[in-house]
């Protein structure tokens, strides 16, 4: 594209998604640049989760295309999309509560045991995991489950992390450590597409921002531009922020 070598890692072009009789994505165009943290904002029901699930192949795009790393992944089955290097942390965390923390991580590492240095790095980010290593994940608190879900996504190096509202329902203190964890991931060079309702948190983290409404992208650009432009914030997010803070 225009940037030449800086080809975006992920590109959605005219993606429509139907779920049963419901038409949810109405032609989404957007890009996620490599090595940066892109925030996906929008009010409830705007289609953020649907967009992530469509990228993952868990719901099928009815038209349009999704390119990842130069490859068309629109029609691939979910496991193949995951194997191409995308990790997904769903909103409901979806940790396996019957399995121990260790077993959850073991499953996430498809290529054999996690390297000990990587494990130490993960424990550094989320110390609780080390403490509860052999405990069934179902016994963890909400915040710890969320950390396990993210740890699962980074158990092996991945090209892109899709993370759906990691701070939802967490206590303020937990939200703070979650933000720190993402800051650390960003510093480690991970490419992340992060759904967030909390604009304050999002503005601290994001390099770029995409705003959705009613199944369409209504704004995209650098986060700094949006932070600077109060009027634009008001127009894009006014409603959603009022209702969530």
């Amino acid at each position, binding site marked *: 594209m225009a940037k030449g070598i800086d080809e975006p890692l992920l590109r959605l072009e005219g993606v429509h998604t139907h779920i049963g009789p419901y038409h949810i994505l109405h032609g989404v165009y957007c890009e996620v640049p490599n090595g940066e943290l892109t925030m996906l904002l929008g009010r409830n029901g705007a289609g953020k989760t649907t967009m992530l699930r469509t990228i993952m192949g868990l719901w099928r795009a009815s038209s349009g295309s999704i390119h990842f790393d130069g490859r068309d992944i629109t029609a691939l089955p*979910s496991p193949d999309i*995951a194997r191409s290097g995308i990790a997904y942390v769903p909103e409901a965390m979806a940790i*396996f509560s019957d399995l121990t923390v260790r077993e959850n991580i073991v499953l996430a590492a498809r290529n054999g045991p996690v390297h000990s240095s990587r494990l130490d790095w993960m424990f550094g980010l989320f110390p609780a995991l080390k403490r*509860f290593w052999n405990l069934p994940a179902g016994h963890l608190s909400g915040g710890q489950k969320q950390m396990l879900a993210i740890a699962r996504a980074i158990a092996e190096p991945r090209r892109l992390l899709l993370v759906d509202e990691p701070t939802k329902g967490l206590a303020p*203190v937990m939200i703070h*450590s979650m933000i720190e964890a993402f800051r650390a991931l960003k*510093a480690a060079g991970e490419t992340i597409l992060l759904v967030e309702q909390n604009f304050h948190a999002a503005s601290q983290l994001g390099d770029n921002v995409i705003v959705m409404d009613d199944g369409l992208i209504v704004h995209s650009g650098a986060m700094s531009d949006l932070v600077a432009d109060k009027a634009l914030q008001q127009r894009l997010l006014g409603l959603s922020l009022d209702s969530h803070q």
Partner: protein
Amino acid sequence: MSNAAAEPIETSLPRARIDWIPLILVPVLAIATLPLVGNVSAWVTLTVAGLAMGMMIFLMASGLTLVFGLMDIINFGHGVFISLGAYATLLVLGPLAGWASADSIGLNLALLVLCIAAAMGLTAVVGVVFERVIVRPVYGNHLKQILVTMGGLIVAEQAIHAIWGASPIPVPVPETLRGAFVIGDIVMERYRVVAIGIGLLVFFAMQVLLNRTRIGLLIRAGVENPEMVEALGYRIRRLFVSVFVAGSALAGLGGVMWAFYRQTLTAGMGMEVMVLVFIVIIIGGLGSVGGCFVGSVLVALMANYVGFLAPKLALVSNILVMALVLIWRPQGLFPVARR
């Protein structure tokens, strides 16, 4: 990076709780009936018979419950595999009839193993076809699933009739497995002891598989959330087909044990025992192997004790157990967390 470690409030160690109550039910039931039966030797005989029956039901039910947990599919034609496994013994008993009547424990056990191998092989192959032709086209549609698997049952039972004839066929128990062990005035039928042994063996093998191997972890994870297993990059379909086939083979194994237990083969024998199988997986919690095991033993023991104490109620006791368990825990003894 280090400040991400800050985690001020959540320092208390969550304690692992094992759900003991359902596990205690079985010994409690056994001990509580001892004074009612009033006679230790009769009680031992009943308990052994109950355990043997429980193991056989567990063999037949375990695959079904896992298949349900993984893919939200219930196979009402599962009984076919039980019948097929039972009839497969004829493939071995025909040419090797001498091994059954030989008074040699080696030959007798070898015969039993061959019967099991034949049954599991046959049911595995039929399982592949059944999954492909009957089950696969109706994923996600419970109504059609129930109907079409019933259709598979009708056709397969008729096919058994066409191949082996419609009249019941007697099956001789291998010589050394007949009769009973007698210790004092306690009598334990040999075949039942063998059945308990095989049942326990399979149960422990399954526990090791489910808890110590990656495949096992995937199955357990898949039962809980198949979609997330896919999102982690594993093909759940392949996993499901393997579990379906393994479950069919286990039903075949159960069919062999059941055939020697009843000593008669009929095409409908699988469907007859399916009622018990359904009760057991409902009691255990759909998708739970451990629950299925406890449920099997509970139902079988109850049936044997009640059969001794109040024979007329024996066959209704299962429904009673099911009703009580469902009132206590509507999702079964060990509800499987889903999504």
